[in-house]
């Protein structure tokens, strides 16, 4: 009888023997060899993707804990999904303590890399690109961790996503840093998540640069404890190309950093330039909802010191001409809808719609210059960001 002994692969909870390295080279049968390695890897193993171009026609997936998938650089190892015929994403990870590094996915039909319920995952120097640029037919999310505790995304680059380039949803303990999100609808989006740190990223040519959202109707709700710091948020001026129906389809072209609902969000040290609708926007959830667990208001959002260049000079909103005239040619950099609680650093220029009620549209708006207090105390940074062990992994 011919049998393959792969006890180690099946006994994921067992003590790993010496870690193996499985090296995959591009060429004939590469997809099958790679997928087999992803299935048969034992905890602790490393799968090395040699430099080159890989044609992948089906979704790949990894379900073994403690595995590293390492390419030869985000421009060296390219997994090309242009002819993908099945699956909703390019690569799906459903196991814990996985490290993905130094490779690229191009033109996945759905999402790029999705990790679901995959705790303590590291995305390091990974690239996801839709090579045709902004297009409603591109996949939704480039890098897509969801329902996970412990997420570190460092040195990534995502271009062309029809929803969010880097999207972290329903997760906790998150760092997104040193990454580039370009020409997506949303550059970086943190949704229904807690304890997220978004720092030292570049968000440019998206419709909206960095979005911090909390939405009703999802299994995990109550987003908050988020810091958006020291990012370069420049020229997010691509017309919204999201398919209608998705929440980001409502994002106005030229939004820099946007907070919708959430509690305890700090925005500081960012450079905001050429975001023509609003360099910073803080608003309540805009639609009606029936979810009793949900709070639609932004609570205790703090806009600290940021550097504001040109912005708010070509807003995509009703009565833009009138507003521009009223504010002297450009809207002030911080826009608030007047709902919930906002604090700003002294002297931060802004304006408020002074809406009386959530979910009722903007017809009752009575725009005026922003007048909100400074924060009463230091922002509590405790517990925000990915666990230190994730950082240690990429050393």
């Amino acid at each position, binding site marked *: *009888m*011919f*049998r*393959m*002994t*792969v*006890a180690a692969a*099946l*006994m994921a*909870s067992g003590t790993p023997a010496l870690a193996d390295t499985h090296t995959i080279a591009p060429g004939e049968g590469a*997809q*099958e*060899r790679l*997928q*087999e390695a*992803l*299935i*048969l890897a034992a905890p602790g193993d490393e799968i090395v993707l040699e430099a080159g171009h890989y044609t992948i026609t*089906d*979704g790949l*997936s*990894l*379900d073994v804990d403690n595995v590293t998938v390492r390419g030869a650089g985000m421009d060296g190892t390219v997994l090309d999904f242009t002819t*993908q*015929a*099945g*699956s*909703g994403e390019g690569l*799906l990870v*459903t196991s814990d303590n996985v490290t993905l590094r130094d490779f690229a996915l191009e033109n*996945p*039909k*759905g*999402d790029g890399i999705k990790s*679901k319920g995959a705790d303590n995952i590291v995305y390091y120097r990974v690239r996801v690109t839709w090579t045709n640029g902004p297009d*409603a*037919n*591109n*996949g*939704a*999310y480039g890098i*897509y961790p*969801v*329902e996970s505790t412990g997420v570190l995304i460092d040195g990534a680059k995502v271009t062309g996503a*029809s*929803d969010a380039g880097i999207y972290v*949803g*329903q997760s906790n303990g998150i760092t997104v840093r040193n990454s580039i999100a370009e020409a997506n609808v949303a550059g970086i989006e943190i949704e229904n998540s807690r304890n997220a740190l978004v720092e030292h990223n570049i968000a440019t040519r998206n419709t909206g640069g960095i979005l911090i959202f909390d*939405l009703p*109707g*999802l*299994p*995990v709700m109550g987003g908050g404890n988020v810091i958006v710091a020291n990012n370069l948020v420049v020229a997010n001026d691509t017309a919204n190309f999201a*398919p*209608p*129906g*998705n*929440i980001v389809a409502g994002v106005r072209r030229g939004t820099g950093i946007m907070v919708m609902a959430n509690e305890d969000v700090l925005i500081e040290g960012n450079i905001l330039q050429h975001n023509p609708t609003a360099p910073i926007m803080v608003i309540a959830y805009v*639609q009606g909802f*029936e979810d009793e667990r949900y709070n639609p208001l932004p609570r205790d959002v703090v806009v600290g010191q940021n550097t504001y260049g040109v912005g708010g000079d070509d807003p995509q909103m009703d009565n833009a001409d009138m507003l521009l005239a009223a504010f002297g040619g450009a809207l002030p950099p911080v826009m608030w809808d007047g709902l919930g609680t906002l604090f700003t650093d002294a002297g931060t220029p802004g304006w408020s719609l002074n809406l009386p009620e959530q979910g009722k549209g903007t017809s009752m708006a009575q725009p005026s210059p922003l007048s909100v207090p400074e924060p009463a105390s230091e922002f509590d940074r405790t517990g925000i960001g990915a666990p230190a062990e994730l950082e240690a992994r990429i050393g």
Partner: protein
Amino acid sequence: MKQSLALLMSATIGLIGSVVAHATILVEPTHERDQVILSDQLPTLLSEFQFFDDAAGRDPADRVIAYELNTPLFSDGADKLRYVYVPANSTIGSDGEGLLQFPVGSAIIKTFAFGEREEQRFIETRVLLHRADGWVALPYRWNAEQTEARLAIAGARIPITTPQGDEISYRIPNMNQCKTCHSQDSEIIPIGPKARNLSADWLSEMVDGEHLTAMPEGADVLPVWQAADTDGEIDAQARAYLDVNCAHCHKPGGSASNTGLDLRWEQNDPFAIGVRKPPVAAGRGAGGFLVSIEPGNPDTSILVHRMNSTEPGVAMPELGRSTIDHDAVALMRTWIEGMSE
């Protein structure tokens, strides 16, 4: 090897004759099979399990019992031959209308075939094994000669002509993709054999044969897909189809739990099953529509749009079909049209 051949032959002879049960007891042909099921190995060949008495995989061995589902999963129109195996001296328990509770050592076997009568060809056989540390899902691909099915860890694509006449690239799932659907809180589980979707006759035969401990409460409530065409059953038919084809991912703890869409038969909250529910992570899959189900308007319901597509990234389910189930799309349209706006 010799021993297993001998056992195989004994079993074959036993089946031809009228003393199946006696033959079983005498030669205990289940013994080696049980070892294979319970081992920690991935058998390379389907025949190593001895689920069938013939190499072509058409004659089920003793204790390998055929079953059917009232409402089946759509798989590009493939014919499916389903079997359960329960080891001697073990019985299946039940959990009300839900999944039958298979003892360790059980196996569930499903062969996918295309073609009419003599032209019928086996494409793949999927095997679920209940091992001591949980279920394992393995796909086996049949060879061109139809004499052997070999483990396809990474899956495969095969050109097929469907019963509807479509030329498709049929996908044999890889081992991980098996789990994508067969998943509850990251553990592999069976999907199909829920009491509510099994016929009372079959269940009662299983009880009589001492394979099943007792007749489960709530059995046989899902409509029989081929037979159901009366207007009064539209709601039950639609909900049964969604339960069987979608809810293995779209349920709490399933692979699509993050969307909040819950298409299980037992879910009664209209919003949870998609009524006026906005998409969460659908991206272009939403097709420009605002909610999963817009009562009265199938044309603007994302659920219909995605069932009516074969485009990766749009099509639902994401795995397991390359063609559109037109009957099901028509049913969903009727169902949604009939909802009051």
